[in-house]
């Protein structure tokens, strides 16, 4: 994956999507943005085949695939990663299901993304997410993050999440989505310094050790969210 990190343009992706219009749209969208789509498939076995054949950096895959249109996309993606542990996974879904994000996050050390399908229409943000996941980072949909946050709210010691200000809450949701400080500053239309201050406040309130590393920071937040759940 280090190769992908140093030269983001060299990302080699495969796409699994049964809906032809969406598949072609995704191929066009990624190609336009310098991401190479080496193969596409329409179902789970197809994903395993092209992953074995092309050894891509990243698999972008729909949750619902033929024949049963339930969750075989997740199952196929997890199986593909078992066979090729370096494979980054970006799962697109019509709906968010916290259980699925948990399974994806628990599946390994490489990049993981779980986004609502319509996020593909926010082209810049989507391409950023694709690059981040391919580079080993995390991209969780804001709906998943929001849902995880709500879930933990009741169980946090002393309701620590409640002590966060609205700004800090927005910030931690963006952190959990895997955004960089610069991206957060852009999104919230504040200075980089303000973002750093929010983050240090959050880590202090949640009793988390701050680090400089974006990816480890995300994992720390998620590990915290998960650890307090059980």
């Amino acid at each position, binding site marked *: 994956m280090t190769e992908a990190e140093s030269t983001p343009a060299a990302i080699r992706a495969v796409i699994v999507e049964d809906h032809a219009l969406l598949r072609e*749209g995704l191929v066009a969208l990624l190609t336009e943005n310098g991401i190479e789509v080496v193969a596409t498939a329409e179902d789970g076995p197809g994903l395993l085949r092209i992953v074995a054949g092309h050894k891509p950096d990243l698999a972008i895959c729909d949750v619902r695939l033929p024949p049963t249109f339930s969750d075989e996309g997740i199952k196929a993606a997890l199986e593909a990663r078992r066979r090729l542990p370096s494979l980054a996974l970006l799962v697109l879904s019509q709906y968010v*299901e916290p259980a699925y994000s948990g399974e994806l996050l628990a599946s390994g050390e490489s990049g993981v993304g779980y986004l609502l*399908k319509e996020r593909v229409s926010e082209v810049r943000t989507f391409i950023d997410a694709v690059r981040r996941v391919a580079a080993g980072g995390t991209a969780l949909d804001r709906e998943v993050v929001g849902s995880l946050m*709500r879930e933990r709210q009741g169980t946090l010691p002393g309701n620590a999440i409640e002590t966060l200000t609205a700004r800090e809450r927005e910030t931690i949701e963006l952190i959990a989505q895997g955004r960089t400080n610069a991206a957060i500053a852009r999104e919230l239309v504040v200075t980089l310094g303000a973002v750093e201050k929010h983050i240090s406040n959050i880590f202090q309130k949640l009793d988390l050790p701050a680090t400089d590393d974006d990816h480890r920071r995300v994992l720390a937040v998620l590990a915290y969210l998960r650890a307090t759940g059980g």
Partner: protein
Amino acid sequence: MSEQDTSLPAIARAAAIPPLLALIALTLVIWALTGAGSLWPMWPAWAFLVIIAVRGVRIWGRRSDQPGARVPAAYAAVGVIALTALWGMSGGGYFWPVWPMLGIVIALSVASMIGRSGTAELEVRVDELTRTRAGAVDVQASELRRIERDLHDGAQARLVALSMQLGRAEDRLAGKGADDADLKLVREARLEATAAIAELRDLARGISPPVLADRGLEAAVQSLADRTGSQVTVNAEIDQRPPPAVENAAYFVVAEALTNAAKHSPGASVRVTIWRDHEELGIVVADDGLGGADPTGSGLTGLRQRVEALDGWLEVRSPAGEGTTVRAILPCG
């Protein structure tokens, strides 16, 4: 005396027994006055007694809610006694009433068999209705899941494709330095499409949540618990998946109970217990909140109807200050 009075004196009065008895007495007086020869008044007396007995049975049958078979049996008894009396009165000898009695017995057994087969027919019909209703409910549940799937994979997928194309158009326009008005137009169209997708998703989830179909009741309830603000613990023992209609009903029972708990007792902790034994699925959702929920509210009434359509039952206990407990049992036959 009420109309439903079935006591002997009431029936005797209604059957006009006293005037008939008076007639019998009159014939006896005439017989005595005319020299008391052969006892001829026994013949009209016999006729009057038969009339009295028949009328008595008729009135008794009408007034009491006796099962249908008992009235014909009473008539038969009257017939048997009358025939035996007639035989005795005519001097005994060869016991000819055996033949009409045999006829009466055969008629009675045939009638009772027909009656019983009517009951059996009803039972078969009830079985059939129960089965077809369960079938209809199952078909409806599968249909709803299909509609949900069609919404996701049909209309919603097209809208996603549309929003993606609009997104690409917007991106290209921005790249070419298009003016803000043009960009705004495309962006607004894209946001509209995205809003439509979100609405469709909420609609589909309301019909039948995808995780329920994909992963079953336990995962779906866990997901509900995750989405609720309250602190929820889920205990589920479901070895074998219930039919779709039962899963759907159980899911909505838990969903409604959790929504109520979050609305009326925010901050309460909620315990969801679900178990499946061989023939039924049991659900208990208990919170330690304020209680005092109205079991006749629209949400709970809707739930009860949903549960009763499956021959299950639902109970809501919500004493003020002691929390709310919703219990439901759903047969899985």
